[in-house]
């Protein structure tokens, strides 16, 4: 796809939606070149007139009537809170300014997230200001209000009192709040016949089923990596997006760093049918069908028990032998993991394997389930079908959209006489119920939630509810209690044991002390392993949560829609993943449409060829194909849920794949993933000579930039980078980066200042010679590329108006008010990190979206080049404080947005001139090298080479 053509665009639905959300971005959607010129000419003429007009909101200064205590105007205030990912908590700090939450930062005091964040947490701040959030109580789609709702419910519930709540049911979305759990338990005491069910697009039932089979009880699993020497993933998601990602990735990276400091390598083995971040980061990855993974798990378990291993194909056997040798050599210091999408049988094998190796209780820790689990969706469907449920309260779930294709939930709701849905947006379910209740966003509500390790985290409001939303706790109180209580009252009552001092401590740290779940020792049962189920013929369709919109819960978040998927770099839609051989056999290429048929249901989607995927599987991600008109997500991608089956949420065997002959362009931000002989990404083999640049510096004819003592620099550790994209979203939030929409991405006009490039490891490819060892997957390397802040910056030579130039601390500045938009700098930039604002993408944003913008960063207008500035606003703030107080800027006082967001601590930033700074120490690492160093641009951003085991070890 050529990135430079202006083409007429046809997708009118998408255009209308984009116009609603981002009027500025949409104004050139349906524009031909000639019309473009007319528009531009008229705009320029009007622009001249507009310059004379002083009339805007900044003409007024509006001080508050009463200043809040402890809040100075313009001052940054930070609150410890938690962001929610599928109901699980990640401890964060929320930065607010003048009462508006602006940015999510990590909370180093939180025992689970330890200062890391993920894309969902970072993007949640945009969701708060979404003008399309649900704003009012509706009854049969007509506006209503809370008192009317309560009035209607009181009588109805009173009538149910005699029967003990028979026919009354609550359907929970993914939720972990201890307070809510206690409320539900209390109500179950009052209504003994009330039933509680749970649903969610990314179900964890297989995880609990696995521990149920292995240990006789449902358990949550998390890992202590402090002593780990080897990690093995069988269809794993150790480092992938999910509730566990932040804490697990942080622990994994810390352990890998520690091992490297001792001269070893925390080796990661991964086997899976579909490449993901875990297999990408694995030192030894192999692709295997789900059936083969099942066999491999059994083979490893048999080896651990001294039993007879089932026969395996040669490559799988070699991989299993290497895995077994590594695990056997690290008994009690290994981790075997299976992902949320692995089958219960594999989960069971993994748990038994960990127990047999002595890992359970040491590195693999189990607690009671963190998720509040009601009965399964299967039981709900059966109960509703029988007519056993007449009043259903759906709390934070979207079953009409998320139910498998063989369940018509909307039709089922017809059998329920009263259906109430509470949610943050008007989704598919909200449109099919009697009452819809708007829920409050976590950033505007009191609450609590648990992390994967059981840590109880406090959710503090950072703003009064923007709309008329209430929390799940408040809704239950409104329904069931004589005197409805506020979320704070409910929360304080539940945590009354903390006392005032404990509550105050929780508010400061974000952790509800003593509320965590303790890991305990479990013993595997003696039950024999179930036989492996026979597999049907044909392709196996595998469902995976989408790395950016998850199960669809985040689909209306524009930052996440425009965030490139970590491995495919596709934005705004999902694809049908096929292995290269399968695509060739079906005679399809990237963008060709295929129809996937399961039983009577079919969906159509574009193909994307995924290297390293198993030949027998077709992979799709959830969360797309939304149907609520007017929402951002409507009409994007295809709905994979329709092919899902109630019996197995993660795979369907025997799917038919046909090409349709239709084809489309996919909005992909990186179309080339091979390095073509360059060393963009260097790999340090253990024990080999250092691959870094060392102190070598090529001579230069240019005069050295004069400095004033400070030299800001950044070092990015490619070994720690897991490609999760948290840095991109954090940068977008911090720097007021516009969303441009799918069509502009197709034209190569995405605006994210930071990108994460992905490359296949060339060295591994060469070592494996491609062909014969096809099952072995070359590691995939991620490379975050912000502005390199070159000391000898080519862009500065190109600019005719000196809009980009150096300051005395070595920053390559971009002065927006000087820029006249020649784009010469971008042409001169070898790293292609400059972004041009083509159509005033930020203009015309909804008023509520404007509230999210960082007041410290200029909102760029049309015709201006923009780029990463090392978060200069944060540097200047630190400089002002340092100058004002006459104290030096401490190491670590300036944390860039990307650095603060990174869950693995891959990004280090600071003053290179200070020899004791973290960045100077990283800079001295023998793995450090400069990207395109041969150009002698002397970049201040440098990289640490990824690490790999010695080639001999690689089989």
């Amino acid at each position, binding site marked *: 796809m050529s990135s430079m053509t202006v083409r007429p665009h046809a997708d009118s639905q998408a255009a209308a939606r984009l116009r609603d959300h981002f009027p500025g971005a949409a104004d050139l959607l349906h524009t031909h070149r000639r019309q473009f010129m007319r528009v531009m000419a008229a705009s320029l003429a009007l622009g001249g007139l507009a310059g004379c007009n002083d009339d805007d909101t*900044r*003409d*007024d*200064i*509006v*001080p*508050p*009537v*009463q*200043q809040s205590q402890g809040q*100075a*105007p*313009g*001052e940054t205030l930070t609150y410890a809170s938690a962001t929610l990912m599928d109901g699980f908590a990640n401890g964060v700090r929320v930065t607010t300014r003048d009462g508006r939450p602006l940015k999510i930062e990590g909370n180093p005091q939180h025992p689970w997230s330890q200062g890391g964040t993920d894309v969902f947490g970072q993007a949640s701040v945009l969701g708060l200001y979404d003008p399309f959030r649900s704003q009012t109580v509706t009854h049969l789609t007509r506006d209503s209000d809370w008192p009317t709702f309560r009035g209607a419910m009181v009588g109805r519930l009173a009538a149910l009192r005699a029967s003990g709540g028979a026919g009354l049911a609550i359907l929970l979305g993914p939720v972990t709040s201890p307070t809510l759990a206690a409320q539900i338990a209390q109500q179950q005491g009052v209504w003994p016949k009330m039933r509680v069910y749970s649903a969610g697009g990314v179900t964890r039932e297989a995880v609990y089923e696995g521990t149920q089979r292995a240990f006789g009880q449902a358990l949550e699993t998390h890992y202590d990596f402090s002593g780990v020497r080897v990690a093995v993933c069988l269809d794993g998601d150790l480092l992938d997006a999910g509730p566990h990602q932040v804490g697990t990735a942080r622990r994994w990276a810390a352990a890998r760093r520690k091992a490297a400091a001792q001269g070893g390598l925390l080796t990661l083995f991964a086997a899976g049918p579909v490449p993901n971040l875990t297999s990408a980061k694995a030192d030894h990855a192999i692709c295997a069908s789900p059936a083969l993974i099942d066999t491999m798990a059994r083979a490893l378990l048999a080896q651990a028990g001294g039993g007879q291993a089932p026969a395996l194909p040669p490559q799988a056997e070699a991989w299993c032998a290497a895995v077994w040798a590594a695990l056997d050599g690290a008994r009690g210091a290994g981790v075997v993991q299976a992902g949320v999408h692995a089958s219960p049988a594999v989960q069971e094998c993994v748990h038994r394997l960990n127990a047999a190796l002595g890992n359970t209780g040491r590195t693999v820790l189990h607690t009671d389930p963190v998720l509040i689990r009601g009965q399964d969706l299967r039981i709900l469907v059966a109960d509703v079908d029988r007519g056993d449920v007449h009043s259903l309260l759906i709390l934070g779930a979207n079953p009409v959209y998320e139910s498998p294709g063989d369940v018509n939930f909307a039709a089922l709701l017809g059998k329920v006489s009263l259906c109430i849905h509470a949610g943050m947006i008007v989704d598919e379910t909200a449109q099919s119920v009697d009452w819809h209740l708007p829920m409050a966003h976590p950033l505007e509500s009191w609450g609590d939630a648990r992390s994967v390790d059981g840590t109880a985290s406090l959710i503090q409001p950072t703003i009064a509810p923007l709309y008329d939303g209430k929390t799940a706790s408040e809704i239950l109180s409104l329904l069931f209690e004589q005197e409805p209580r506020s979320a704070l009252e409910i929360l304080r009552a539940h945590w009354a044991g903390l006392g005032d001092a404990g509550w105050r401590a929780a508010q400061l740290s974000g952790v509800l002390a003593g509320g965590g779940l303790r890991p305990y020792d479990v013993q595997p049962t003696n039950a024999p392993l179930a036989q492996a189920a026979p597999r049907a013929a044909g392709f196996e369709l595998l469902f995976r949560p989408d790395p950016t919109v998850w199960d669809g819960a985040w689909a209306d978040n524009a930052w996440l829609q425009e965030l490139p998927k970590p491995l495919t770099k596709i934005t705004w839609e999902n694809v049908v993943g096929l292995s290269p051989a399968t695509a060739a056999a079906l005679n399809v290429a990237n963008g060709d449409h295929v129809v996937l048929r399961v039983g009577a249901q079919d969906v159509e989607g574009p193909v994307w060829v995924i290297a390293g995927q198993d030949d027998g599987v077709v992979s799709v991600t959830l969360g797309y194909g939304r149907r609520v008109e007017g929402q951002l997500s409507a009409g994007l991608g295809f709905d994979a849920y329709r092919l899902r089956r109630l019996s197995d949420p993660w795979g369907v065997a025997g799917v038919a794949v046909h090409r349709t002959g239709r084809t489309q362009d996919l909005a992909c931000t990186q179309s080339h993933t091979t390095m073509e002989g360059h060393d963009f990404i260097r790999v340090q083999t253990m024990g080999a000579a250092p691959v870094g640049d060392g102190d070598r510096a090529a001579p230069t004819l240019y005069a050295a930039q*004069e400095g*004033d003592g400070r030299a800001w620099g950044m070092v990015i550790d490619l070994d720690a980078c897991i490609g999760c994209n948290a840095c991109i979203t954090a940068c977008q939030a911090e720097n007021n980066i516009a969303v441009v929409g799918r069509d502009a991405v197709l034209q190569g006009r995405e605006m994210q200042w930071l990108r994460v490039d992905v490359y296949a490891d060339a060295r591994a490819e060469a070592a494996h010679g491609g062909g014969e060892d096809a099952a072995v997957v070359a590691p995939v390397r991620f490379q975050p590329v912000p502005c390199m802040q070159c000391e000898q910056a080519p862009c500065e030579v190109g600019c005719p108006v000196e809009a980009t*130039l150096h*300051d*005395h*601390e070595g*920053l390559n*500045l971009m*002065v*927006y*008010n*000087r820029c006249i938009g020649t784009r010469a700098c971008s042409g001169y930039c070898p790293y292609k990190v400059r972004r041009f604002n083509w159509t005033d993408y930020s203009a015309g944003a909804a008023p509520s979206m404007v509230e999210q913008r960082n007041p*410290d*960063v*200029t*909102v760029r207008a049309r015709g201006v080049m923009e780029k990463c*500035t090392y978060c*200069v*606003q944060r*540097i*200047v703030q630190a400089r*002002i404080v340092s*100058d*004002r107080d*006459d104290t030096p800027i401490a190491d670590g006082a300036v944390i860039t947005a990307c650095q603060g967001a990174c869950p693995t601590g891959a990004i280090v930033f600071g003053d290179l001139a200070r020899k004791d700074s973290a960045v100077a120490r990283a800079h001295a690492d023998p793995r450090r090298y400069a990207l395109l160093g041969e150009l002698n641009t002397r970049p201040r951003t440098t990289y640490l080479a990824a690490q790999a085991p010695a080639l001999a070890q690689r089989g």
Partner: protein
Amino acid sequence: MRQLFAPGADAILRLALFVVAAGSVMMLVVAGAVANSDYVSMVGIAPAQPVPFSHKHHSGELGLDCRYCHATVETEATAGMPPTYTCMTCHSQIWTGAPMLAPVRDSLASHTPLAWTRVNRLPDYVYFNHAIHVSKGIGCSSCHGDMTAMQMTMRAQSFHMDFCLQCHRNPAANVRPIGEVLNMTWQAPPDQMARGRALVAQYHIRGAAVLTDCSTCHR
């Protein structure tokens, strides 16, 4: 054949060329003068305010400290504007019935903020920080003029970039002892340059080269 041009034609042509040339120059001069005029930069123009607040009375005659109302001038980027409660600390006791103060009382009663018309304004891409200037010996009056003499608040400087730069290029000319920062009638002593240089060294004010880095004000 008759001559095409009369003998005076050359002179007319020369005159026309001169007029065009001089006119172009004049236009630039006039445009520059208009752009820099007080009319455009609004220097000395006092906009109407919801309450005709007099700095001359409060600050000059009564001697209220600047920081009583502009409380964050020493700590934050913005000097801060007084909340209605600050006005009412005194005006709940004195002039309680004055018609002039009705908007203030209404603001308190209805809990609706007063909307003051902004007098001093910088473009969106300029990030000025009061705290650092005040703490490094730049007085209020250097930018805001003598507020104690202003009946109605007006802009004292154009706040064009050259105004900022003349000080950033040569801070010694304007730096005063910290104790004089709030003095609205401070005049530079005759040996200001020598004293200023000493103060620049004492306050660790960085050199002109650093102070004129674009990132100092633009982000």
